[in-house]
């Protein structure tokens, strides 16, 4: 292996690409070349660092100095000052409050531990940080049933929203005798405000692949699919590269590590439908149909894709698996809280100083996430509400800021963790507007299969639109709660069941906002 004096890690993600990172990177390489530094300084592409609004950014190791908001004309200074003379270009260094957050942010990471540190398009870098060790351990030392037991013992719960224990899900499929079984990864991230899976796949695609292979071995599946939304172009590209590399290295394919186990991973691309996040709708879509949910039971674990036993897991769930196998269930049980182990990746947005993502232990309070990871409220405004869990989430007022963020604690407040999206609103925001936007979303995304959802959502929209236009009555609020409650109890899938949560919590906690529109 070649040794370099310094490594420069350039964050390549959707945001930096828009800011012209490719041009800047080639300028940097050319400039290093010109100064005969390209043998000493290694320039690497990596995933996003996890904060936004910083344009093109790069981190120089071993000094660990992050430069941000770089323009083409800054490259000269960086090469001449930093790399030739060893002087930090302080005017370009990322604001220290952000860097502090950045270091803090890495401390607790499990799923995103490598994101922003390794080159996601190079399998050797992933292997270099201990990647695929869990896969090797599984193939050479563990029986499939032992893998299932380990994941069960870890207490890992599904990160897609429902929080079903992953090991238990696997244990339904594992004992079934079938010629063909599948593992399907749900990467159809459509919950408004959620982009955690995008960052996992952009920053560390091999971790996802490793998790898939372990899951596949555990349940005896020889083929896996990653169902990804069509909008995630960079993720699709990175996964394609990763799968190709894994095949070339013999980590995927036939008779892996001479174990006799074969595995193949294929990417399936969606075409834009929120309901396809529902596992049976996703399977319908994979088969080339309209993405409408199927009747359960039989559950996909017994009869899923092409009527074969199929395990469907969220990206984040699967990305937890390699660490659990490598370090053991006991280790995983030291993170998080009773009944809800491990970390959770949150996406924070709205009126925050530092919107972006963070990964932290389950059970961290909402206040900590907003103040420490999100940097607190922007422009000195007061906090009014946080919508936790996406559109299918719950509005939490100031009094609930100390709620612990895990499946069980949130349940006590009739709230949900959902996908981990946190939309923060300040005092100027009118909850009526936001609820209107949420209901409009559900009305648009209802798939039309069942009556309560396809007819209920337009009714809800009519009511909220009337209120928003100042023509509502107080009785309309009770009507909205009633209609959404009926939908919650009678809809075929989670989509129709969801509007109840934002509606009930908005009206209960912010009734004044609605009444103001009725004067």
């Amino acid at each position, binding site marked *: 292996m070649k040794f370099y004096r310094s490594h420069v890690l350039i964050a390549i993600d*959707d*945001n930096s690409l*828009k800011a012209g990172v490719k041009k800047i990177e080639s300028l940097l390489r050319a400039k290093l070349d010109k100064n005969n530094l390209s043998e000493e300084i290694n320039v690497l592409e990596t995933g996003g660092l996890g*904060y*936004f*609004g910083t344009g093109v950014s790069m981190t120089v190791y071993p000094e660990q100095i992050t430069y941000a908001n770089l323009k083409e004309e800054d490259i000269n200074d960086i090469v001449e000052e930093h790399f030739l003379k060893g002087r930090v270009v302080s005017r370009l260094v990322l604001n220290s409050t952000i860097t502090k957050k950045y270091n803090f942010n890495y401390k607790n990471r499990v799923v995103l531990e490598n994101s922003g540190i390794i080159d996601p398009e190079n399998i050797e870098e992933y292997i270099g940080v201990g990647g695929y060790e869990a896969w090797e351990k599984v193939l050479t030392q563990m029986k499939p049933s032992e893998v299932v037991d380990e994941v069960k013992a870890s207490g890992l719960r599904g990160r897609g929203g429902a929080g079903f224990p992953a090991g238990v899900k696997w244990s339904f499929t594992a004992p079934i005798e079938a010629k063909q079984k599948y593992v399907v990864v749900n990467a159809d*991230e*459509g*919950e*408004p*405000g*959620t*982009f955690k899976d*995008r960052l996992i796949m952009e920053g560390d695609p091999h971790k996802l692949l490793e998790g898939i292979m372990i899951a596949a071995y555990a349940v005896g599946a020889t083929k896996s699919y990653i169902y990804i*939304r*069509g*909008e*995630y*172009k960079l993720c699709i590209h990175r996964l394609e590269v990763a799968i190709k590399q894994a095949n070339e290295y013999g980590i995927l394919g036939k008779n892996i590590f001479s174990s006799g186990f074969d595995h193949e991973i294929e990417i*399936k*691309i*969606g*075409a*834009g*439908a*929120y309901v396809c996040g529902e596992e049976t709708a996703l399977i319908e*879509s*994979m*088969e*080339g*149909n*309209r*993405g409408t949910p199927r009747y359960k039971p039989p559950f996909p674990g017994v009869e899923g894709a092409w009527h074969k036993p199929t395990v469907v897991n969220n990206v984040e769930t699967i990305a937890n698996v390699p660490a659990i196998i490598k370090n053991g269930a006991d280790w995983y049980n030291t993170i998080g809280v009773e009944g809800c182990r491990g970390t959770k990746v949150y*996406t*924070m*947005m*709205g*009126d925050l100083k530092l*919107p*972006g*993502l963070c990964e932290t232990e389950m059970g961290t309070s909402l206040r900590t996430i907003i103040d420490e990871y999100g940097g607190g409220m922007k422009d000195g405004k007061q906090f009014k509400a946080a*919508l936790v869990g996406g*559109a299918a989430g719950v509005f939490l007022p100031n009094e609930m800021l100390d709620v612990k963020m895990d499946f069980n604690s949130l349940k006590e407040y009739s709230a949900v963790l959902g996908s981990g*999206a946190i*939309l923060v*609103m300040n005092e100027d*925001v009118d909850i009526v*507007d*936001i609820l209107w*936007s*949420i209901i*409009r*979303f559900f009305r*648009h*995304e209802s*798939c039309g299969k069942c009556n309560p959802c396809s007819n209920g959502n337009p009714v809800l929209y009519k009511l909220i639109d009337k209120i928003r236009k100042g023509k509502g009555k107080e009785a309309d609020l009770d009507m909205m709660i009633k209609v959404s409650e009926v939908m919650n109890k009678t809809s075929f899938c989670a989509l129709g069941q969801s509007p109840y949560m934002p509606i009930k919590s908005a009206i209960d906690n912010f009734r004044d906002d609605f009444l103001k529109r009725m004067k």
Partner: protein
Amino acid sequence: MYEKIFEKYSPDKENLIYILHDIQDSDPQNYVSEDAVQKVSEFLRIPISHIYGVLTFYTMYSTKPRGKNVIRLCESPPCFLKGSEKILMQLCEILNVKVGETTEDGFFTVELCACLGICGNAPAMMINEDVYGDLTDEKLIKIINDIKRRA
């Protein structure tokens, strides 16, 4: 004219979504025509009704001709909170169209879409394959002008 696309896939129903993506992407008017549906039906040996069902279910497909550049502005709550409605009004004003319409020169179509997953940079939109975030009125004008100039 669709043979090149069909060659890439086995005639299985599960490939329908890809084939429709490819056909739409290769069409200068960014849509899937009746003729194309007919050909896909013959190739995959599935009814036209099934194909139309799929086409009209997913938001990324269109059965009507669209502009050369399809603008999809996110209307989800995070973007809404950051003023996507104002951006939409501005966009419609600059291009002199309503949502779902195409400009007279056939250059732009304005559509709304669900969350694009870049909520940290709300409000956001997608033009063809490219994502644009942190939209402001000035930025919007610049983006539109840049695309016009490149043409």
